[in-house]
Every structure is written in C-alpha cells, then in structure tokens.
C-alpha cells in the first residue's frame, strides 16, 4: 500500500479546505444557523413539540444531514473535477497509487470535512437548544457512513461531469429537494398517507430518520432498515467507483 501517496492526496485536499476556510466551513455553518434561527427559533416557537421533542431540537439531526449531504457532494465532486479540468489529474493517473488509495485520499478528505462540519453544526445548535444523544455510537455510524457514501457519490459526479453546469445541477436538482422532502423539518407521519408512501422512495428519508433515532429514539422508519439502505447506497457507490477505475471511464482514455 502506498501510504505516502494516500497521505499526499489527503493532505493536499485538506490544505485546499484550509485555503478556502470561509467557503468550506464558515458558509455551511452560517447557512445552517440561519435555517436554525428561521425554522427553529422563529417558526418553531409557534409549533408545539413533535412526538414529545421540542421543534428546535427535532430539526437538528435533519439540518446536520442537509449540510453533510450537500458538503460531501460538492467537496468530493469539486476535488476530482478540478484536476480533470486543469489537467493536473495526469499526475495522479501516472502515480503508483491504486484506485483504493486514490479514494482514501480524495473521498477520505471530503468525508473528513463533512464530519467536521457536522460536528460544528451540532455544537452550534447546542447553543440554541437542548440536545441529547441517546445512542452516540449509532449517531457516529450514521455520520461517518453518510459522509463517506455521499463523498463517494460526489466523486462519481466529479468524474462524470464534463462541465461546470453538470457539476452543480445534480446537487441543486436532486439532492436539495430530496433532503427538504426527506423529513428535515417535519416528521413523515405528519404527511397525508399518499405522501407518506411516496416518501419511502426517497433514500434521504432513511438517513434522516435513522440519524434522528440516534438522538431522540424517534424514527419514521425502523433504524435497521435505515442502516441497511445507507449501507446499500455506500456499496453501490463503491461498485460504480471500482468500475470507473477498471474501465478508465472519463479518467483514462
């Protein structure tokens, strides 16, 4: 295993985060805090509890997921798309690193950033409301699995995109609606039955539900199914990435 190679890519990506500190960390924290103030404090004060949980506290897991999904996707896709765009990718392609090592570097760094952002949001939220975490290990499992799988998804997006437009269109057209409709701000059980059923086709519902369960033991779907679906998504992304490197799709002509 080329450990120095992994360290080089990982270190490079983390340095990129430090260079763009405002964009990487401050802006997601700021926007989440705004959501929190608007939905949690302003509107939430008029909404009573959901399933015995204060509304402000109820939305915290969903807000964390929203930030983690968006940031994983944009960091990982940008991390691999930018070298493709500038041509510096030639160096990684010609280096003695296997696809697993390339992933550990790029996806590892993107997932690390997401986890850092998630934790910062949690700490920020803790200033506004009382948060308890019933199952810290499960919470950590969801945090890591979501960060890794959506970073992988971002990596795929960054390899697939052949222009800046495609790079931004997937997060805007797919991820944002899925997250907003995935139960960030409400419980699925509050919806009419038809919409409840439709929601079950939204994978983000399982992420947020499972994540929220780890906080408040309150879930729309069973936590086992949540873990299974998240693992399935992670595995699917891994298989696609392996295929990308095997065939050289858009990386090696």
């Amino acid at each position: 295993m080329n450990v120095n190679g992994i360290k080089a890519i990982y270190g490079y990506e983390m340095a990129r985060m430090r260079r763009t500190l405002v964009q990487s960390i401050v802006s997601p924290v700021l926007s989440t805090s705004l959501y929190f103030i608007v939905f949690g404090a302003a509107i939430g004060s008029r909404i009573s509890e959901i399933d015995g949980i204060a509304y402000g506290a109820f939305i915290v897991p969903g807000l964390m997921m929203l930030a983690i999904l968006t940031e994983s996707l944009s960091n990982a896709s940008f991390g691999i798309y930018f070298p493709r765009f500038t041509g510096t990718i030639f160096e990684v392609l010609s280096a003695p690193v296997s696809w697993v090592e390339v992933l550990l570097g790029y996806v590892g760094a993107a997932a690390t950033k997401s986890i850092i952002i998630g934790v910062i949001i949690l700490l920020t939220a803790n200033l506004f409301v009382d948060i308890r975490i019933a199952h810290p290990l499960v919470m950590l499992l969801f945090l890591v699995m979501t960060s890794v799988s959506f970073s992988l998804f971002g990596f795929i997006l960054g390899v697939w995109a052949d222009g800046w437009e495609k790079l931004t269109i997937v997060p805007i057209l797919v991820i944002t609606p899925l997250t907003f409709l995935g139960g960030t701000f409400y419980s699925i059980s509050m919806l009419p039955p038809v919409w409840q059923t439709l929601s079950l086709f939204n994978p983000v519902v399982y992420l947020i539900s499972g994540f929220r369960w780890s906080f408040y033991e309150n879930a729309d779907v069973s936590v086992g199914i949540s873990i299974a679906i998240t693992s399935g998504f992670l595995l699917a992304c891994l298989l696609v990435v392996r295929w990308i490197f095997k065939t050289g799709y858009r990386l090696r002509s």
Partner: protein
Amino acid sequence: MPDILTIRDLHKTYPGGFEALKGVDLDIDRGEIFALLGPNGAGKTTLISIVCGIANATSGSIRVDDFDIVDDFRETRSRIGLVPQELPVDAFETVWDTATFSRGLFGRDSSPQHIEKVLKSLSLWDKKDSRIIDLSGGMKRRVLIAKALAHEPELLFLDEPTAGVDVELRQDMWDVVRELRENGVTIVLTTHYIEEAEQMADRVGVINNGEIIVVEDKTRLMQELGRKQLFIQLQQPLDALPEPLSDLPVELLHDGHELCYTYDTRSESTGITALLRTLQESGIHFNDLHTSQSSLEDIFVDLVRRTE
C-alpha cells in the same frame, strides 16, 4: 540487466476509431538520451501516455525495468517521471508544496534535502514559497520538471520540453538533463526542434502515423542518411548548365552564380575530382567552394515524406 523500457507490438485505437499507434516496437537502453521525433499527431504523446499509465493500450506489452506496466504498475510508475507537454499546474499551491506533494504521491518518504536540491538545480529555490499562479510560463515549466524529478525517477519522459521556452531556460534544462544522465537516469524526449535532438540525443527514433520508421544511433543515422553538398561560387554567372554537367546531380542556384553538387559520403568515389576537372575543361572558373552536411531536420523531413 534488462532494458529500462521494452515496448512490443503496441496498438492504440481511440474510441472514435482513430488508430494512433499501429504496432510499435521500441527498446530504450539504460542511461541513454533517446529523442523521439515526429510531426504533430504522429503518436508521440499517446505512446508516452500509455507508458506512464495515463492512457490504456489497446493491445501489446510494455515493460519498464522488466516489470509489466499493468500488472506491476507500482514498480513501473515509481521509476518513471513525466514532464507533460501542456502546463497543467495547480495555481494556488506553492512551488515547495507541489514538489513535496509529487514526491509523496509517488510513494517516497519525505526528503526536504532532495526537494531543495531539485529546486536549486532548476533555479527555483528563491521561488519556493511563491504560488504557482504568480510564476511566468517558463517558471511553470521548471516547476513541472521539479515535480517530475521529486521522486528520483530512473526513466524521465520530457514531452516537448522546450516548446515556447526561452534560450536561458533551454540551456538550464539541457544542463539538468546532462547531469541526470551522468547520474544514470534514462531520458526520452520528444521535440520539434530537431537541432536539440541533434545536440543532445544518443539515439533517435522517428515516428509517423503511429509507426516507428527508424531507430538509429544519431551519428550513424546522420552518416547513413545524410547527404553532403558542395557549393561552388562561380566567377561568371551561367544561364544554363553546360552539356557536360547536365547528367550529374548538379543544380544552378542564385541566378546562376552558384553550383550545388549533391553527393553520397558512403560511395567509393564522391565524384568531386571529376566534377572539378569537367568545370576546368568547360572553362568555368570559380572563386570559392564549401561543403555542408544535411541536418537531422533534412533527414527527418525526408524520412517522413518517404513514408507518406
């Protein structure tokens, strides 16, 4: 010891159907400077890209230091350094960071001493903390060379290293190349500047339309394929070639002020004595004469034309 690079029956067909390489065989000797010449689109960069792992071969085999480039890619790639033709650089990184990154990426333990040595040899030391975006084009080229040398490769590919580079950098670069060769590094370079190949290379290969036309020791290539020409400055201009000269490979140049006689250095008799005698008998007087040897460029153009 095995050859540093062995290429056998290498084919590359792009998805669109374009056949970039049509069965290339090539052996590179350890420690030599090999110049790969060829017109644009001949397949030079494709060939290098496949050896380095940037592009996939359609078929054929490539071994670097007797390791297969696919099965033993770690062994082969850690031995290879590549300076690409384009200038893809990371705008916001510093020179020091980007060279250190390259060394790590290629699996080497960090060595500030080596990076310092490389940067100094390329006159980049005082720029080590500059961001690459702030450097000139020539400096960026130096940075790319530094990156390629950061992991101490045994086989260095320089793809058009002097395209758009000023005289000073070119000289510096050749100094570095010579020093690398003295330290046992094998160098494969592609270039449009044939005079460079003529000055630097031990052996020359010519590629055209995806096929290697010739691989030859540079001196021998120039001897074998080179023609010599004798130029004779006439006292009185001639309107046409006189009868006794018309059967010889003689041309009249500069409005009849100069005669040019082309001959083959390898043949037993060059025919120069006979030519001069004929001139004297025909009453043609001359002031001066000089000879010139065809350059590698002439040979190259000739070869490429012959295969088209």
